[in-house]
């Protein structure tokens, strides 16, 4: 634990960025190498302020780019200690090369991604383009839907990634501005409680352990590369066991329960949307309105985006007639990523609900309860008709003529 303790109130009003930074402070990180970018900048600023006021015993290295931030994190993690950083959007795009190095070298660390659109055109607001950019990077990827969850998932992330059965880096996603700059009630743990939960960092193949000189970042060709990628994938897939354990332990400590897939009123739902990010919480209000109209709506959200909870999400959707997968990212010439994942999950299952793909909220375009209600009403009509209304993919909330693709 850091030598200087910060007394926290039972209830704090923090935005998502402050929630991330507070969890990072409590986790007693050894090295943070970081570079600021909107909307994750306050994470870096807050951490610098904590450091400047003696609340951080570790090193804070303000580097010259996001690529260097992740490079420094990899070097520091390989040296043998706890490491974290934060970024968004273009910054993430710049550091992507090194994301693959971190996971390939099996170096645990935590990366807070405050989700934001990717240029061009330039946009500082939230969508999930950057989240999707990390899909195949081999990191565990956790999603949050509110500032409280950002805090909770950060604490869990260190514990999951550093577990000896896992040893993988972990991303914690939150929506730019909608979470990162939205202050809400947070019920934090006190410093000792949080630090004890995260636990002490256990080094493995550390470069600073000179009793066991180690070489990291070797060259492998067709003779060995496949085995190591297989081993890495196996660790990622089996991290579910540790994730479940950590979530259970966290529930005991905080009373807050987390699942691989979150849902609201899915027990008797006939139609559902699948979402990521803060839309999950807004959609619950839309679900309640729908229920008042007699429409049995539900909402499903992916908490653990990687490893993808294929079975859990499929089970969740077995009793619905129509599902809309909501992708908050320009799909780039195909269906959205979430649609792809969900259709893959459902294909081998008994139920084959109608499945459509909605592209929404790009560049921070507001997703209102009203629009969510409209989506549910359309889904309800499709469920009743027993077929999709003309196409698989459509855009909502964009000005101009209707955009629909993949006619059915």
């Amino acid at each position, binding site marked *: 634990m850091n030598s200087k303790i910060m007394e926290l109130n039972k209830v704090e009003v923090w935005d998502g960025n402050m929630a991330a930074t507070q969890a990072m402070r409590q986790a007693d990180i050894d090295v943070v190498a970081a570079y600021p970018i909107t909307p994750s900048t306050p994470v870096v600023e807050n951490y610098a302020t904590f450091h400047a006021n003696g609340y951080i015993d570790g090193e804070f290295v303000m580097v010259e780019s996001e690529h260097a931030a992740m490079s420094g994190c990899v070097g520091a993690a390989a040296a043998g200690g706890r490491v974290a950083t934060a970024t968004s959007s273009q910054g993430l795009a710049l550091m992507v090369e090194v994301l693959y190095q971190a996971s*390939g070298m099996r170096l645990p660390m935590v990366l807070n991604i405050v989700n934001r659109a990717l240029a061009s055109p330039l946009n500082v607001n939230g969508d999930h383009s950057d989240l999707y950019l990390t899909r195949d990077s081999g990191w565990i990827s956790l999603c949050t839907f509110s500032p409280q969850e950002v805090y909770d998932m950060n604490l869990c992330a260190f514990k999951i990634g550093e577990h000896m059965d896992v040893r993988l880096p972990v991303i914690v996603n939150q929506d730019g501005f909608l979470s990162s700059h939205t202050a809400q009630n947070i019920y934090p743990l006190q410093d000792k409680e949080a630090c004890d939960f995260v636990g002490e960092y256990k080094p493995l193949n550390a470069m600073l352990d000179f*009793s*066991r000189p180690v070489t990291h970042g070797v060259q492998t060709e067709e003779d060995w590369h496949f085995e190591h990628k297989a081993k890495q994938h196996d660790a990622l897939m089996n991290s579910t066991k540790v994730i479940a354990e950590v979530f259970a332990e966290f529930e005991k400590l905080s009373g807050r329960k987390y699942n691989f897939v979150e849902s609201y009123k899915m027990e008797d739902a006939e139609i559902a949307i699948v979402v990521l990010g803060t839309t999950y919480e807004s959609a619950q209000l839309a679900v309640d309105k729908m229920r008042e109209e007699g429409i049995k709506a539900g909402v499903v959200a992916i908490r653990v985006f990687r490893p993808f909870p294929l079975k859990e999400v499929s089970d969740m959707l077995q009793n619905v007639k129509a599902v809309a997968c909501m992708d908050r990212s320009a799909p780039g010439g195909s269906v959205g990523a979430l649609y792809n994942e969900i259709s893959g999950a459902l294909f081998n299952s008994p139920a084959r609900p109608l499945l459509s793909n909605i592209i929404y909220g790009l560049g921070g375009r507001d997703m209102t309860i009203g629009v969510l209600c409209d989506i549910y009403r359309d889904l309800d009509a499709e469920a009743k008709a027993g077929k999709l209304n003309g196409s698989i993919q459509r855009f909502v909330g964009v000005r101009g003529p209707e955009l629909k693709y993949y006619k059915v």
Partner: protein
Amino acid sequence: MSKSIHDMGWDELVLGAAVHSFKEEIDYNPSQVLPENRDYAETNSKYKYVGDWRVFKPVWNTDLCIHCQFCWLYCPDTSILSREKKMIGFDYDHCKGCGICQEVCPTNPKSIIMFTEQTEEEEALNQWPEKKGSK
């Protein structure tokens, strides 16, 4: 734990493709302990062989050598064995036959000369040239 890495499947490998230089933990700094006293791991390139790269091999004439150590200094393949300030021979497992050692040898005639790989040492020593300019 005697299983060779070459017989291992993906599940048995050290994660992250990390490679250890020594078999076990060491309680010394390698800069203080000569190679013959170290317990190298199978994965140290020390145990690899590149001798077959050679077309010409260096042969050493102990009668002429002044142990100046230039050959030791400039060998790119750590293949000149020196102990206690004296040249003691070649590490033919690691020598690629570049010929730098012959080139930097200051004696007249040279104490190290490159011969074709198949030349026997005795045969090579018999062919050793005379001192240049001695007549």
